[in-house]
Every structure is written in C-alpha cells, then in structure tokens.
C-alpha cells in the first residue's frame, strides 16, 4: 500500500510540475531535481500535501551551491528530496519561512555557513557562529576549507 501511494504521488507531481526530474534511489528515497525559481511553489505544494520538512542541506559543488530540502511523508515513511542549484556568483533563493516556520533556523544556518541569501527571511542573522566571527566568511565553502587546511598544516610545521 505504501508503495502504491508513492507511485501515485510521483505521477501527480510529474503532471503538475512537468519540468522536474525524478530519480528513485530506493523505494523510500526519491530525489527530485528542480530549478531555483520553482522551489518555492513546489515546496508549498508538498507542505500542503502533509509532508514534513525534515531539514535542508547545503553543499558546495562545482556547479554552484546545491540546496536539498528533505521532505518526509510520514504515513508512508518516504523521503522526497528536492534538489536545486544556486550559482555561486549570485547566491540567492526565495525563503520558505512565510508558510513554514520550521525552515527558519536551517535557512539561517545555510546563510552563515555557505553564504546563500534567503530572500524574504524575516531575521537572517547568524545562528551558530560567534559575534566575533568575520561576516561573510563561510566555513563550509570549498575555498575556505582548503585555505583553512593549508593554514593548519603550516601552523603544525612551524610548531615542530
């Protein structure tokens, strides 16, 4: 029964949002790729269908910053993951907070760790890092990670 629901649901999605790309990883894990502009409407659709936003992940990849919204459909235990890519030279995306308060903290976190601006977020302050942390320095970006590693290694060399 659970499997049938998933199949029907995916059919509904592809009818309503023809531009999405669906990849089924395993029976309970589905990845859906969508453009940056379409995320807001699609997420709203999922939320109205009773899906729960588990979390969003931000990843620094070659094509840009990839954001994955993990939506869980609890009655069938299925994860629908919406993937979208935000280019690095224009890191902006529309915020989901106006209908989904659960997205509040995670958007703040992605903003400070990866430097993506969420347009329409009411309170886009840093969530985790200290007041003394330099603004605009994003620790989960590749360039920072590589730089930081280099500094560490040089520091260790000096110590020894």
């Amino acid at each position, binding site marked *: 029964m659970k499997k049938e629901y998933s199949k029907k649901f995916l059919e509904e999605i592809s009818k309503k949002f023809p531009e999405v790309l669906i990849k089924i990883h395993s029976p309970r894990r589905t990845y859906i790729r969508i453009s940056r502009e379409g995320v807001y409407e699609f997420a709203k659709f999922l939320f109205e269908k009773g899906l729960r936003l588990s979390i969003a992940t931000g990843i620094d990849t070659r094509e840009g910053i990839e954001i994955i919204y993990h939506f869980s459909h609890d009655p069938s235990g299925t994860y629908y993951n919406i993937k979208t890519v935000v280019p690095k030279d224009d890191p902006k995306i529309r915020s989901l907070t106006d209908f989904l308060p659960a997205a509040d903290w995670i958007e703040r976190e992605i903003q400070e760790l990866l430097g993506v601006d969420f347009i329409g977020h009411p309170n886009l302050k840093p969530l*985790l*890092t200290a*007041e003394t942390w330099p603004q605009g320095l994003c*620790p989960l970006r590749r360039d920072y990670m590589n730089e*930081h*590693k280099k500094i560490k290694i040089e520091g260790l060399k000096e110590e020894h």
Partner: protein
Amino acid sequence: MGNLKLLGLKKSPWVFHLAAAACNNCDIEILDILTPRWDVERFGIVLVGSPRHADALLVTGVINRKTLPRVLRVYEQTPKPCLVIAVGSCACHPHIFESSYNVVGPYDKHIPVDVYIPGCPPKPEAIIMGVVKALKRL
C-alpha cells in the same frame, strides 16, 4: 589563619559546573556523582547555582568562539581562591575537534587549570578521584 582557610576549603568544596561546547556526557556524569550510588555530599561537595558561591569550577567540553568570553567572565566572577578542574578529554585537549574552525582550544590556554581528568566521559569514580586529588594538592 592560612591553615584554617585550607581546612574550610578542603572540607567544604562547593562546585560550579561550567560546560563550554561539550557533549552532554561529562555533564551528566557530574550530576550522576550527586545521586545515591556515588553521593559526594558525604565529602561536603555541593553543586551550586551561582559562580559567586563556588570554590571550584568543574569545566567540561572544548571552548568555542562563542563560549570563550562567557567562560572568562564566569572565571572572573568566582571568588578566589578557586580551583579549576578539567573534566573529560575535551577539556584537557580538543583532540578530534582540533581541526574545526570554531574551536579555540583547551581550557588551559585561557584560564589556569589545576587538575585534569581524562576520559570520554570519565567514570564517576575518576571524577571523584580528580576532585580529591585537587584538594590534596592544596
């Protein structure tokens, strides 16, 4: 006079529990030593709610950028003489967290530490032993 002071301190160490960025374990084990199995009140050790009342600080976890000013402030607020006891491996050295961008090092870089209790988390016996050792050193 000096001896009297030491005697008072030895027989009645009030501790304030100060957790920087710790996982809960050391903190829970510290609370655990108050419960019936270990019962440190036998030695006069009491956990107090305000650093102003404390004689010893039990510190846990690594210090991150956000907690550092708070840790320093709590240390300043504690009336001297006060002991600082680092509970758990994190408090002794950041180890696994050393490569992180947000960790600014162990306690002894920032405040003087008297006793180190290693372990992840240290067993309650080890914590009690550490406190006793700290008192013996006085």
